[in-house]
Structure formats: structure tokens, C-alpha cells
């Protein structure tokens, strides 16, 4: 009987000891929805778009009106040049919260998707805030693309006035000089 108990019971006793030991250990907590959103944004920031789309998609399935996940998804699609999808996500995000950054991204999406009129409307709306340097810059670049040099020059100049210590100051100054040259050439042709 003892031998039977030993043969059948001893291995299970060992298993039981470990099972109890492991049960007393706290299990690592899984990520909250907010944390998962940041993970998704992290994947976007590190250019791992497939993972970012997957994680943010999971968040949106649970909470369809999560602003940060919607905005993040918009950024992912924008980065992936899926402008229609990016527009849809950003519009939904803006329905949840009127965020100037998200609106600016929408303008950038329009600009990249060559919806110039919509882009201009977005940037001009944002320019109503005189301190919005990014809107000035984006509007300036849009105007440059459209060949509207004077407006481009004014907006880029405004950008440097608002952000005198901008990291890209030298590059923008060069751009302004180029625009001035082009304007003179255009005048000569006339």
C-alpha cells in the first residue's frame, strides 16, 4: 500500500508543491486600454505600422471613441499613405475632441492627398490662432506647392516670427529666399 501511494502520489505531490508556489506568486498584470493605446502609438513612432494598426485596432474595438487611438490610427494611415483611411480616422477623432494637433494632421493628410482646397481651409482655420506656428508653416508650404509665392513667403515669415528659435530656421530662411528669387523671376517675365 505504501509503495502504491508513493508511486501514484509522490510525483503529484511535487506537482502540487509547485502549483501552490506558483499560485502564491502574483501574475503580471496585463495592460490597461490607455496603456495599450500608448503601445500602439509607440509602434507608430518606431515605424512598426503593422503592429501599431493591430494594437490600436484592438483598442478601438473595445472603445470606438477613444480619441488617442483614433488620432494614432490616423497618424498610422497617414504614414502609410492611406489618405482616405487617415481622413476617416481623424474626422472621427475630431468628433470626439476638437484637438488642434489632430486638425493640423488632417490638413497635412489633405495636402498629401492633393485635396488642396480642403487643406487650405483647415490651415486657414488653424491660423486664426496667431500663435499656431505649425499651421503657418504648413499653409506656407501648401501655398508654395500651389505657386502662390507671396502668400507662401508671408506664411513662412510668420512661422519664423512665431518660432524664432525653430530647429529648421535655416532651412526655412533658405526657402524664403528661394521664393523671393522666384517672385522676382516671375515679375521679370511679366
Amino acid at each position: 500500500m505504501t509503495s502504491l501511494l508513493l508511486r501514484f502520489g509522490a510525483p503529484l505531490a511535487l506537482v502540487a508543491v509547485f502549483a501552490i508556489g506558483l499560485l502564491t506568486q502574483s501574475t503580471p498584470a496585463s495592460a490597461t486600454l490607455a496603456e495599450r493605446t500608448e503601445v500602439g502609438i509607440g509602434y507608430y513612432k518606431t515605424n512598426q505600422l503593422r503592429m501599431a494598426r493591430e494594437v490600436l485596432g484592438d483598442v478601438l474595438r473595445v472603445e470606438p471613441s477613444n480619441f488617442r487611438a483614433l488620432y494614432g490610427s490616423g497618424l498610422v494611415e497617414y504614414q502609410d499613405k492611406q489618405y482616405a483611411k487617415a481622413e476617416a480616422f481623424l474626422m472621427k477623432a475630431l468628433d470626439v475632441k476638437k484637438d488642434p494637433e489632430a486638425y493640423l494632421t488632417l490638413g497635412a493628410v489633405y495636402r498629401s492627398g492633393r485635396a488642396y482646397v480642403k487643406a487650405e481651409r483647415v490651415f486657414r482655420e488653424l491660423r486664426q490662432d496667431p500663435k499656431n506656428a505649425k499651421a503657418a508653416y504648413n499653409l506656407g508650404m501648401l501655398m508654395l506647392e500651389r505657386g502662390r509665392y507671396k502668400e507662401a513667403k508671408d506664411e513662412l515669415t510668420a512661422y519664423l516670427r512665431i518660432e524664432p528659435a525653430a530647429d529648421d530656421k535655416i532651412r526655412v530662411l533658405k526657402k524664403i529666399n528661394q521664393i523671393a528669387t522666384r517672385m522676382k523671376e516671375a515679375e521679370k517675365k511679366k
Partner: protein
Amino acid sequence: MTLLDRFSRWSGAFSTLLLPLLLLVPALFLDVLVADTFKTTPEVLILLGGGLMVLVVGIGRALGGLPALGGGTGSRARWLMAGLTLWVGVTSVFAFNARMAWIYAATFITYMLVGQSVLDWLEEGRERRRLLIASLGGLALIQTLIGATQLLRLPYRAWAEHVPGGSWLHSFLISLTAGAETGTAIGTMGNPNYLAECLVLLWPVLFGAALVIKSRWLKVTMFGILVLIAGVLLGTSARAAAGGLILSGLVAVWLVWGAETIAYLRQGWASARGRLAFGCAAVAMVVVFAVAGGPIVSKFQRLGTSDESIGSRLVNWQVAVAMIGDRPIQGAGIGNYKALNTAKLAETHSEGIPLAATKTRFAQAHNEPLQALVELGLVGGLLLLGALVFWVRETISNESLSKPLQFGLVWGVGALLASGLFGFPLHIPVTALALMTVLALGLAGSRPVLAPVLPTPWRVVYTAVVAVLLGTLLWQVAVKDALPLYAGGRYQDLGEKLTKLDGGETTLTVLSLAERTQRYRVEVIEKKIRALVNAEKFDEAVALYDGSQREGLGLGSLYWKGRALQKLGRKQEAYAAFSQLATLFPEGTDYNKRSSRHMRRLKKELDLEGAAPQRLKEGH
């Protein structure tokens, strides 16, 4: 046949399908260490698949009226292994860092249970032995073929470009480029040494099996494969593995055949077929050596203390010996080597770490017996040694195994252990799993298989108990532990990339998540300190460093603490931190250069303020 018997047979058939998958599938993913603080794909696959195997075999035996986990009854090696497992549990409770110990203990017991379950499974039928050897051959072949293509520098990256990004095949091809671009054989194991260690375990087993194959063509094919494996093994240029293979081969011959060896050799030489076999073996050896032996010969010629890998190991072993002295009987607890090592390194080499050792972070002792003594103490070391000695004795006296197979098994395990004197093969998931199955092969059939002993009503009760206990344990190990830790690894990877970008909210959130899901948090904390400095949260960085001393932070964190203190204007403390780093790391190393630069600046500022304390001036 009762219904219970029928279920028992079904579970047997299912486990027969499961075992080859368990051995082969993880080999298709890039491997990382068992003891890592997070779980990677192969390990999660092994834990999930192994857990399922344990459950299926255990329930199958219980249904058939046999004791679950009862194979190899009467084997002393098995009891000593069980004792070792229990001891791992005991030391985990009293470990230096229990949280860290339990992570690894959970993995350890799963591997042990898988080994025992394979033993149980093998005892159900002799034909299963062939299937297991064939699966081990498949594993060796996968690694060998990949290794060979890496030696040939096949353009894996170019091929990966034709495969959709993010798919398994894409990641697989990209992971192979690591070896293919440098012409190094690493298989899917991440390092040539890991591949060599796996192959030195498998090659002798396959060699032993090839010797007893009856079909002539199969035998020739097997020897052809063995020549290919030997070529890749040499191509890894792993000295410890190659040396271990030769030495353990000689020892295994002596152990299995003893003085009769010479008589057998004479007998073989006497026949024409025997001479042909010897001749073919000699030609094969010469060809393999001529084709792939160059790099390893030149590596052996560089052998000496000036050799970086030897120099770093000597320092590592010195530190390990000092660590054994701290807790000689009970050890620091399994998985605790890494955490204790940094502090001990700074203590034993306060006058400066030798240059050869500065490039290696000593996560492992690079000597399995020493690491076992550090983590499990003398008791654990003796249990392990006893288990291995009895395993060799029982394998050699296992009459159900042919002599060549006994020889192959003893040789393989010996070669792995010999290479483990310079590396850490028992910490590589695929190798560790293969080892457990090889150990099971040695013991299987060494004792008579028991007839069912439980009457039918008791079988039902017993099966329920087995299912609940094994299910609880394996659910805890594989699902509640391994999967979150797998996620933790991904968060850590992401956190590392983000830390290089900025120290913003996303970075800190991801790092916090990695810290929480990994339990053993050293690497994450180190990154978090750096991220907090990047985010200009200097107070938090210093507080995190000071509060995490017990976790065994790496010396790199001291640099970031110094940076934070410098920014906070705590110049003397910053100077002391940089001074410690500059002393520990010899001139020319990155930390020495960076710390010295900050020290010069701080010294100037402190001199100007007239605040430089004499103690610091004297130090430099």
C-alpha cells in the same frame, strides 16, 4: 477494451503527434535564453506545447491505470532529478530575489515534467524511440541546413523583400540574415556557440542510432547527414563544443565498452566491410576538416588569456566563485545569477575590470556547474551531479538499448556538459528541450513497464486529480506566466527603441508596462532611468536608481544617474558616480571616456566654486 482504455490510447496517439511538433516547430523561430526575463516565441511554444504534452501523457497514463509521471520507476537518476526540482522550489522561496527565481523555476519544472512525460511516453511502445530519434534528427537537420546556407551567405535579406512584411516568413528570413551576412553558422539559435552546443548533443545520438540501422541505404543517408552536420559544427568555430565532443567521445567509449573497445576495433578491422567503413570515416573526416576546419584551427591557435573570450570568462568565473562563497549551501536562487553579478563584479574588481571583460554583460556564468552552485548551492550541485552520474550508469546498463545507442546518448550528453564548462547550453530552450528528451531516451525501458494497477473506479478519481493538478500547474506556467512575460518582452523591445527616440509619455508608459509585466525588471529599469533623464525628470531618475539597487542594476545605469545628478546641480555626487565608473572601466572603453569627460567638466566647476572636496581630488 473499456472506454477508459480507449481514451488512454487516443491520448497516446495525440502525444505521438505532439512530440515531433514540440521538437521541430520552436526551431523555426529565433531562439533566446531560457533564463531571460521575458519569454520569446520558441520558449512560449515549448512551454505551451510541452505543457500540453505533460497533460496529455499524464491523463493518458492515469486513464490506463498507470501512475502519471511514473515512467522509469526505480531509476535513481529520476528520483535525484525530482529532488533537484523540489530543491529548486525550496531555494526559490528563500532566494535573494524570489520574484525572479519563480519566473525561472516555473520554466525549470516544465522542462523537467516534459522530460518525465517523454520518458512515460517512450515506455508505452518501442517504436516510439525511433520516432523520437527521427524528430531529434529533424531538429539537427533544420539547424544544419540553415547553418550551411548561412556559411554560404545566401541572400536572405533580398529574399525577405519579396515576402510581405510582418509575416512569419519575413521575420524568419530576416532573423537568418544575422548569420548569412557575416558567413557565420548560427541556425535559428542566434549565436554560433548555441548552434554548436545543440549539435554536439544531437550528433552523437544520431551517430549511435546510425550504427544500429539495419537498412543499408538509410544507414548511408544517415552518415551523409552526419558528415553535413559535422561540417556545419566545425563551421561554427565553437572551440568548447568541438573540444567537448572529442573528449567526451573518448570518455564515452571507455564508459560503454571499456577495455573491450580495442577488441571490437580489431574485429571490425578484420573484415573487409569494417575496413571500408573505417576508410570512409577517415576520408569523411579529412574532407570535412579541409572544407570547414580552417577557422576553428586558427581560433584554437589564439587560445590564451589574451583571448577576449577566455579573459572575460576568467573574470566571470572569479565573480561566480565569490558569489558561491556568499551563499554556499542554499545558493542565491535559480535565475538570480544575473541580478547579483553586477554588484559582485564591482566589489571583486573595484580597482578596475580587465579590458577583456568590459564588453560582456555577465548574464550567465559561462560555466554551467559554477552557475548551478551559485544559484542552487552545494545541495543543488550535488543533486545535479548525482542525477547525471546515475543517469550514465542506468543508461549504460539499460538492456533495452543497443550498445551503440547507449554510447551515442552518453557521448551526446557528455559533449553538451563539456561545452557547458565554457557556455550555457542548458539555458537555451531548444537545446534544453532536446537534452530532456535524450535523458528520457537513456532511461526508457531500463525498468519493466508496469501493468495497470488501479481498478477502474479509482482510475476515474485518479485521472481527475491528475488533470486538476497538472492543469493548474501548467495553466499557471504557460498561460498565466509565459504569455504575459512574452508580451513583456515585446514591450521591452519597443521601450528600447522608444528610449533612443525620446523620453516622452509614450516611452515611459511602455517602459512601465514592460517593468510590470516582466517582474524581473533590471533591463527595463535601466532604460527607464535613461528615458527619465531624456525627459528631464532628473529627480525621478535618481530616485528610481536609488530605489532599485536590490534589483542588481547594470553599471550603465550609474552613468545615467551621474547625468541626472549633474543636471540637478548635485555636482559632488555626480563626480563620485562618474569617478566610480571611470575606475571600474579601463581607459579606452566607452564608459571610461564618457565618464572622464564629465568628470573633467565637473572638476573645473567644483574648483571654480572652491567646493571640490579633498577626497574627490585625491581620487583622480
